[in-house]
């Protein structure tokens, strides 16, 4: 190894002297281990070389030193694995200096590919010349590789030789040459491909067709539309595969949608044409108002299958010029066509189409009805909501309901006054949808009016609907404090049933500002209010309610309330994000208060999610209780697993206790599994 390093330093010094510049010394590497590398050994020597290459990047002198060293190795007796790796490093840094060495390996049985990888990345003419030269000296796979390399380099000078390869008896060589000629381009290359296509038989004919399509596509991208169309058209007319017709059709209509519209029309007019769906899809994407008009005009004359697709495409074009044709299709007796047209209105229509959609939103036919509702919900434009509101007054109850539902789906804030007015009328047939729509649309300013509906409701169903609307509206508001303030305004003067409703709303908002009122209501003399407050508190999402719940769990007169409060307290103990110590203290209290197996199991479920030896110990206290022993053991095992070997002195005896006492073989197996992960000294 020492000898190799000395040689390397001497070589580096000589190269620097030759270059007349002082290059920093590249990172050293273990040349001996590197050159003897075989797969399966440590890659550390390779990684050091890789590091040296990376460090040399962008430092020409150092890069030259590293490159030369790699070339020396490539020509040495190093292992093939090492040389493969060297070629891959040269891929990044090889320069003209590497060309003759790499070219020498292009027909090597083991190194032809890696050498070519590096050679094809060298941008200089010398690399191109070496690859062109190799075309006449390589055969089989190496030759195919060389052709793809020239292809990637877009080496137009290689075109004559590549044209010669088109008739190579080796299919792989011919196929690579076809792909390469398309990429290198040039008049001669394209003419050669076209001539070869005329006389070729499959599969070469198909490869040639794809190459010509790719070439024409490049012409299209450069704006040479006529030249592209000249290539596409014969392929469309003569090709025997639908895939090539598909590609050629796309090229033609992209080149000139007006000129080749007749091709689309011919396909759409023939319901057995395999390209029918493709032709309709082109109508979706191609630009131009004239195309919309021509397609819309042809619509009535097309076969049914094509009409449905063209209507969908016209909808996606979003060109209002198609609206008359689409409106006519909506009224068609053909359900499929009508549904397609109703769906198309979602993206194409505006306020003017509201009455048409309103005609169908309560239709008997389920698909028409669903399409109309969906489109009305998504209809864009300034006056759409206004038109829907106008329609409400003129329609039957069923349609009114659907229009109201749509206003909610559209989150139409402009509709709130009308919706409130409908709510005030108290029409039971419209009540449910009206309040749901208000829940989706009402803002802070609308809450007092909705609260009036809670207070003024004649029936419980209406009160519940208004209450749900307020709750839904409140949770959407940015200012939750303000919501609480508004909801609490009528509270002091409210009846018991209204107070209960307001408490439930506070329970939905769940903002701390509402908590004092809820807390105060726990001691309300009215048991209904007490009960409502406790139910709200039992689902409170923060520990601030814990003390109140614990007090109720201990002192409430009613056993149901005690259970409710205790369960709420346990739920708070299990809230995510609490510090371990706080959580543990809450569970300890909950454990002490829990008498029934149902609540103890809830405690154990919460403990199981913790990662603390104290949780393990707390769960273990219930191991002797036969009613919850299985849950206690499961919790202990879960906590022990989460501790990952920590607190083994606490965990091991507990797990052993499970092994000694549990009747469950699966729990024992789990306990044993965790126990085995603990240090032997603890077991």
């Amino acid at each position, binding site marked *: 190894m020492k000898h190799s390093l000395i040689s390397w330093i001497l070589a580096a010094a000589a190269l620097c002297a030759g270059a007349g510049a002082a290059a920093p010394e590249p990172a050293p590497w273990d040349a001996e281990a590197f050159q003897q590398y075989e797969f399966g050994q*440590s890659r550390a020597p390779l*990684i050091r070389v890789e590091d040296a290459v990376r460090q040399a990047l962008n430092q020409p002198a150092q890069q030259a030193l590293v490159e030369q060293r790699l070339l020396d190795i490539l020509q040495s007796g190093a292992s093939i694995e090492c040389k493969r790796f060297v070629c891959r490093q040269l891929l990044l840094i090889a320069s003209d200096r590497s060309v003759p060495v790499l070219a020498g390996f292009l027909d090597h049985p083991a190194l032809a590919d890696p050498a070519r990888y590096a050679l*094809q990345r060298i941008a200089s003419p010398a690399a191109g010349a070496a690859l062109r030269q190799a075309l006449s000296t390589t055969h089989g796979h190496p030759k195919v590789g060389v052709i793809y390399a020239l292809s990637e380099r877009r080496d137009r000078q290689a075109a004559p030789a590549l044209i010669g390869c088109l008739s190579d008896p080796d299919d792989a060589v011919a196929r690579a040459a076809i792909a390469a000629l398309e990429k290198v381009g040039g008049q001669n290359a394209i003419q050669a491909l076209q001539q070869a296509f005329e006389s070729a038989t499959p599969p070469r004919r198909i490869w040639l067709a794809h190459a010509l399509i790719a070439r024409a596509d490049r012409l299209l991208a450069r704006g040479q539309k006529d030249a592209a169309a000249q290539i596409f058209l014969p392929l469309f007319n003569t090709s025997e595969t639908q895939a090539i017709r598909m590609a050629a059709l796309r090229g033609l209509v992209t080149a000139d949608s007006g000129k080749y519209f007749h091709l689309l029309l011919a396909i759409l007019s023939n319901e*057995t044409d395999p390209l029918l769906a493709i032709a309709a899809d082109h109508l979706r994407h191609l630009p131009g108002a004239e195309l919309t008009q021509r397609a819309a005009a042809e619509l009535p004359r097309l076969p049914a299958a094509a009409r449905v697709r063209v209507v969908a495409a016209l909808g996606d074009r979003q060109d209002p010029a198609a609206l008359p044709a689409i409106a006519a299709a909506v009224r068609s007796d053909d359900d499929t066509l009508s549904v397609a047209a109703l769906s198309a209105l979602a993206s194409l229509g505006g306020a003017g189409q509201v009455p048409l959609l309103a005609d169908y939103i309560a239709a008997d036919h389920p698909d028409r009805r669903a399409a109309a509702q969906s489109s009305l919900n998504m209809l864009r434009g300034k006056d759409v909501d206004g038109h829907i509101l106008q329609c409400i007054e003129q329609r039957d109850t069923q349609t009114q309901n659907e229009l109201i539902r749509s206003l909610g789906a559209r989150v139409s804030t402009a509709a709130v006054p009308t919706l409130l007015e409908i709510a005030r009328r108290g029409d039971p047939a419209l009540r449910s949808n009206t309040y749901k729509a208000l829940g989706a649309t009402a803002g802070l300013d609308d809450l007092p009016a909705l609260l009036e509906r809670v207070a003024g409701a004649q029936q419980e169903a209406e009160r519940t609907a208004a209450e749900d609307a307020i709750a839904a509206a409140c949770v959407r*508001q940015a200012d939750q404090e303000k919501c609480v303030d508004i909801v609490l305004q009528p509270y002091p003067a409210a009846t018991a049933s209204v107070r209960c409703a307001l408490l439930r709303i506070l329970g939905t908002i769940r903002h701390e500002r509402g908590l004092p009122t809820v807390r105060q209501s726990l001691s309300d003399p009215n048991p209904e209010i007490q009960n409502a407050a406790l139910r709200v508190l039992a689902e409170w999402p923060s520990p601030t309610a814990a003390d109140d719940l614990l007090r109720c769990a201990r002192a409430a007169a009613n056993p149901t309330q005690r259970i409710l409060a205790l369960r709420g307290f346990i739920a708070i103990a299990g809230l995510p994000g609490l510090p371990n110590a706080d959580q543990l203290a809450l569970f300890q209290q909950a454990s002490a208060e829990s008498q029934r197996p149902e609540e103890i199991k809830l405690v154990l479920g919460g403990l199981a999610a913790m990662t603390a030896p104290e949780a393990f110990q707390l769960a273990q206290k219930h191991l002797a209780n036969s009613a919850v022993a299985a849950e206690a053991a499961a919790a202990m095992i879960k906590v022990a697993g989460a501790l990952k070997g920590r607190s083994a002195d606490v965990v091991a005896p507990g797990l052993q206790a499970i092994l000694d006492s549990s009747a469950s073989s699966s729990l024992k197996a789990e306990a044993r599994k965790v126990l085995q992960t603990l240090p032997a000294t603890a077991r």
Partner: protein
Amino acid sequence: MNFPPHSRRIWLKRAAATAAGLWAAPQWIPAAALGAGRRPAPSHRLTMGMIGLGSMGMRNLKGFLQEPDCQITAVCDVDASRVQEAVVEVNRTYGDSGCARYRDFRDVIARSDIDLLCLCLPDHWHSIPAILGARAGKDIYGEKPLALTIAEGRAMVEEVRRSSIVWQTGSWQRSTAHFRFACELVRNGRIGKLERIEVGLGVGPTIGPQPPMPVPAGFDYEMWLGPAPWVPYTQRRCHWDFRWILDYSGGQNTDCGAHDIDIAHWGMDVEQTGPLTVEGAGEFPSDGLWDAAVHYKYECHYANGLVLMVGSRNHYPTGVRFIGSRGWVYVNRTLVDAHPRFLLKERFGPDEVHLYSSPPDRQGHRRNFLDCVKSRRPPASTIEVAHRSIAVAHLGHIAMKLGRKLRWNPDTEQLADDPTASRMLGRPMRAPWGF
């Protein structure tokens, strides 16, 4: 919307039969299909060839088997045991023995009676079957990440566009309601002006040196390597573990990045473009068979001023966090969270941004593909969008590997003034593979 029968294969058959004065019977009539409940008649089913039968391949196979209008008629893998497992699954489900088995994907693509391909191959095998499949006019469901390199991805995009086929990338998070909702919150300005996006991905695994081994019976290792450099066989190179080796994939950076960078781009509204600069650092294994980045972090700047940070989960929590001037939205596979919290109840009006909506979750993503094959509309995860997403991860990898800032032109997809990094945008293929 229901579209009339659409299959090119069906129409071809009918056209041919009509020309001959006959109405041809389908090529195959599985016993279970005759008069079977709600399944469409065989001639109205889309026929599918499954290529690649590893974990994702089998998951997709089982998913497509559930779709009544899809008939898997061929399965293909270089591992005979996997082919056998798949054939048993397909034939058991259909109650017949009609599923053909293949080792070479080209034989599946050559079948004119197959409409669709499902490609679930290692990344180094993504581009060639996709390009050949598109040229054969097959509609394709292709697994993510889209391609092994940016150059291969662009070639795939061009071929799919030229061929007018439907392509769905397996980035199924786009078909998940809460990912869509998170992006809609961002796109509709609910968190104010979007400023920064953090994407957290997995930490890459490591393994020691692995000995060369004899190739197992029934496994065509030469075909498995395909266009990748030749190396001796060892077990932990192939199948699931290929993703940790840079010759075949890009590690967690591309495996998870294909999903979460995609979601980031969706929310950022940069799906059709890419960053201008990419810079970062990664920790690569110091030894062993697997060589993809373990810990990593890179920063991408976009023309619209947005900054996308991508890192392994020691840098950012797994998922995507959009940070705006008035709040944030965080989304991963299990939850969406936001500040302020009321944003989670937001709804969007018709004049706001509504992102592409497809049936939910993994199965819905597959369903969306079949629906789009029928309607010819673009599916949830188009190939251009998938290419743009994974290009970010590829650029991140190049920047980390070379240890320098890259200047990227997303229009030309070229790197400025960096010939060395430019050499890494594509990878030469082992002969005779190429396109």
